[in-house]
């Protein structure tokens, strides 16, 4: 199709240039500031040109703060979040799509409803549950009168207590309790031809064999997409790790980074060091995006179809 589209192409190019500048600008300023000394920032303000202090500032972050151990926490949280979400939602989507069960619709609706109310909204009571994950069980025993019964028979009611606060499990579990993965895999299973299933049955494949030998290899790209997506979301979480872990050695890197900024308004904070921290904390997810961008984009599109 040949036509004169010069005016629109010029406008589009300008828009894209502004958009790229908007995204890259703050990232560039972070990097250039991280490579300057504190004194330079005090006299010159924002660093427009990169300096030579990047590794000095990074070394300061690594030696003087808990960021390294916190990055290890972030790694554990993000990785287990991705792994658990992929595995558990794959299994539940499999059960919902490939089994003749009457409650499939109800279970899927219950899982999908989690998308409506994000963790950040229900953080107060999620914290209470995490501080004793048996509290719902205790409440059920109390309400049903079973506890009054045991109190009569054995002299004391059942009261179990187990806090998952300040543990990696506690940081990860509420993130996994989310429906996006199940939704994504269900959509994927529904696009597969029915004959695939019939052929596998005819060859004598049982549920487990069908899952491992046929569905899993086919779903590899979807698994990869969901993995990248949930890894990034686990790494970038803020509010839940902030309340779920109270000691610096259990906090995640993003929370640790936010804690680098001093609360007092007195003097100008050591911005080069903080920016070096921001660079360090963002290094892992950005590398991941650079390497696995195809899966990230696919994941974003798939999760909303």
């Amino acid at each position: 199709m040949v036509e004169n589209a010069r005016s629109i192409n010029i406008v589009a190019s300008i828009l894209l240039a502004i958009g790229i500048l908007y995204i890259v600008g703050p990232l560039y300023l972070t990097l250039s500031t991280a490579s300057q000394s504190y004194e330079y920032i005090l006299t010159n303000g924002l660093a427009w040109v990169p300096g030579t202090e990047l590794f000095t500032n990074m070394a300061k972050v690594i030696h003087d703060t808990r960021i390294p151990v916190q990055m290890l926490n972030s790694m554990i949280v993000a990785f287990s979040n991705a792994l658990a979400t992929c595995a558990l939602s794959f299994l539940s989507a499999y059960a919902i799509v490939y089994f003749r069960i009457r409650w499939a619709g109800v279970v899927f609706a219950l899982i999908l409803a989690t998308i409506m109310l994000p963790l950040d909204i229900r953080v107060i009571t999620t914290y209470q549950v995490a501080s004793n994950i048996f509290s719902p069980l205790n409440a059920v025993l109390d309400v049903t009168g079973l506890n009054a019964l045991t109190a009569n028979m054995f002299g004391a009611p059942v009261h179990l207590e187990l806090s998952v606060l300040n543990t990696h499990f506690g940081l990860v579990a509420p993130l996994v309790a989310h429906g996006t993965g199940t939704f994504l895999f269900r959509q994927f299973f529904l696009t597969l031809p029915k004959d695939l299933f019939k052929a596998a049955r005819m060859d004598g494949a049982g549920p487990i064999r069908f899952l491992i030998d046929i569905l899993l290899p086919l779903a590899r790209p979807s698994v990869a997409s969901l993995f990248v997506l949930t890894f990034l979301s686990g790494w970038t979480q803020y509010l839940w790790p902030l309340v779920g872990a109270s000691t610096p050695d259990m906090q995640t890197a993003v929370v640790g980074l936010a804690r680098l900024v001093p609360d007092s308004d007195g003097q100008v904070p050591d911005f080069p060091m903080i920016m070096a921290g921001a660079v360090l904390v963002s290094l892992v997810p950005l590398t991941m995006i650079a390497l696995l961008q195809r899966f990230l984009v696919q994941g974003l599109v798939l999760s909303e179809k």
Partner: protein
Amino acid sequence: MSSESSLFGHCWLPLLLVAPLMLLIVLFFYVPVFQAFYWSFFLEQPFGGGSEFVGLQNFARVLSDPEFWMAGWRTIVFMLTASTLAVAVPLMLAIAADRKIGLSYAARNILVWPKGIAGAAIGVVFAFIFNPFVGLMAPLNALFPGLWNPGMDGTDAFVTLVAAHVWSGIPFNFVILLAGLRSIPPTMYQAAAMDGASPWRRIADVQLPLIMPQLFLTFVLEFTESITSVFALIDTMTGGGPGGSTTLLVYKIYIDGFRGFDLSGASTQTAILMVFVLLLAACQFVFLGRRINYER
């Protein structure tokens, strides 16, 4: 949806497959949601100090608190401005990147980067860039003292919040909208061009109507997103200040619950916010969803 023979007939295996995820969802989603509503009718003492049924007193207390209404109002203002911008900016970029021009390949790559940067991290960075003494506006501030100070002026602080929110919202909305644009069949453009529609005209008459489902979707998700994910930005950029001018509801709930140990008040506000979010989504589906034609 499928014939009987195309499904497995096990009875206990599917239960076993669903159980792990369901257990987590019940424990960390349904119990907390239920508990927020339950606690809003009780006066809860912190540190497990017992509870007392108070009926609607918590709601009466929260609803008569001007701070709550202020935070609610700011939440709505933020939701409308930030989510409109967070959809409109990626929309323009997506329409531009959909054209075959030199920059579009680079843009498709670069515009997803923010997905890897935590809200709190970009909050720390934006707080520095917009710092009135050493940041971007410092030279202007030297010329016109008091022109820009997010630490003193509530509007300035609000603007920096919106700018940071739009920044981190670009990847998702851009990718979704671009995917929508790219799924428009080329024959549509050709037909429109044959009828004499210029490239500009085709934006309004072909592209926008055909990506309505994606546009609707980004709006629905962005409304909830702007209400909740703003916490990381507030906590790192403004701390709710100056003078409470950036204390949105999600931040106020955190402060009341974790700093003030007012569990009942925080739960009541959580319950109100949940109902608001659910109503909002329902309204959007009823009023907007119906008008959108999903047929291609």
